[in-house]
């Protein structure tokens, strides 16, 4: 329980510090493009219902994308990492396509899938997919032979080796990939929502910018930041639950 309280106190302190810095910057720069936190927060409160529904739209897109990216990327990466023959075929394809910035496909996806949810989810899950795939593959390759041998000596078949060794061994690293790609996912979400469509926080922020409503723009930015923090915290809590053993022996 005390860990939770410490976390809450940490967050409160960080928020206070950010608000003070923000206010100071706003006074220093003295430009209408950088209103202080009070203006932004009062706009946030005033427009809360509208912002909540836009946040809901964005949250759905990013959550669906992350889940889709993991659901395909993690099993495929683990399988490639454990199957040298399949890996020999697919690894070059992965290495060739991984460094290509996926955002450049947004125009293609917009044409193929329209300006609704589908194109945005496809783009973000593509990015998450590659990050999780590459990490999961490396993690699966790094699994100690002794772990596999000891489980196989107990009579485990391929599937049981996967379940008792490969998945749990790779899970902490998949979570790391997930944390990193969530940040990317939200950035790409903003980009794709601001380029096309008329819903979501990215659209809301760019729309407010166009109307020179800087207070509202910052209200949207705060909502987007909160969305990121909530997702991140959710992943943290899930890892704490699923990878308890990584904290064992560390006091």
């Amino acid at each position, binding site marked *: 329980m005390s860990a939770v309280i410490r976390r809450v106190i940490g967050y409160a302190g960080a928020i206070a510090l950010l608000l003070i810095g923000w206010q100071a910057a706003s006074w220093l720069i003295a430009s209408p493009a950088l209103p202080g936190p009070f203006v932004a927060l009062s706009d946030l409160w005033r427009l809360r219902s509208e912002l909540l529904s836009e946040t809901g739209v964005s949250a759905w897109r990013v959550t669906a994308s992350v889940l889709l990216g993991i659901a395909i990327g993690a099993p495929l990466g683990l399988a490639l990492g454990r199957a040298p023959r399949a890996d020999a075929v697919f690894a070059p394809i992965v290495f060739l396509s991984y460094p290509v910035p996926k955002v450049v496909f947004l125009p293609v996806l917009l044409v193929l899938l329209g300006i609704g949810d589908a194109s945005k989810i496809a783009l973000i899950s593509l990015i998450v997919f590659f990050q999780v795939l590459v990490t999961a593959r490396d993690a699966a390759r790094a699994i100690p032979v*002794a772990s596999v*041998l*000891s*489980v196989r*000596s107990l*009579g*485990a078949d391929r599937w049981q080796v996967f379940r*008792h060794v490969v998945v*749990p061994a790779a899970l902490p690293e998949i979570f790391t990939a997930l944390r990193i790609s969530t940040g990317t996912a939200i950035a790409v979400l903003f980009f794709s929502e601001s380029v096309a469509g008329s819903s979501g926080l990215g659209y809301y922020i760019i729309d407010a910018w166009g109307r020179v409503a800087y207070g509202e723009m910052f209200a949207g930015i705060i909502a987007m930041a909160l969305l990121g923090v909530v997702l991140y915290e959710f992943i943290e809590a899930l890892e704490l639950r699923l990878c308890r*053993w990584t904290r064992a022996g560390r006091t």
Partner: protein
Amino acid sequence: MTDVLIDSASVTYTGVERDVRALDSLDLALGAGEAVAIIGPSGCGKSTLLLAMAGLVGLSGGSIVIDGHGVTAARLRTALILQDFGLLPWKDALHNAALGLEIRHQPLVDRTRRATEALERVGLGEFLDSYPAELSGGMRQRLGLARALALDADLLLMDEPLSALDALTREDLQDLLLELWRQRGHTSVLVTHSIEEAVFLGRRIVVMTPRPGRVHAVVENPRMGEHGYRATEEFYARCAELRRFLADEGAVHGARVAAPPAVGAS
């Protein structure tokens, strides 16, 4: 009970440049309930022999027959215990001990009971929910043993199981291994590079030749298992005899070993 018949077993690993012959038509017969220690220079194929007996490495020639059945895959009541204990860091002691039973689809209640009993037997009854990282080296090896006991294994294959432990813990666990063998009467194969350990835990001691692995000599050790054997004259005599055999192989400070490099000023 479980006897093991190894008949001109050969194992060849496919290497990058050329194939490596790890075992070369090795013959060995183990009676049911016998305790055998295998010793030899590193790279003599001791571990390969053990893995082949566990059904994890395929033979390129010959056969291994356990309890009347040829070994082709992992056998139900064979337990393999490795140097790093083969524990899974993400499972607590209870789940590690119960893993073999879980893989063999035993019901949850049954496997929890048997794993708990096994853990109590090796002195880990208080540590059911500890992860391996929270246990000391000796306790981890006890946990590895508990897994074998939970399976009710009748053939224990151990690959240098105690070599990572400090001297005192090692003696403690050697006593435990001996005690369990005396109580349960399982067939025991211990691969070790410690001469004392081989004499303490092997009624017969098999000395292997360097690669390709063959049986160089078999030393009878009839008083093994007697109380206080470790302190007797005969124990030391047996160790000396074994040391001579190994020196012939060039495995221990024999004439064929190059002189150590001169120690420089530090």
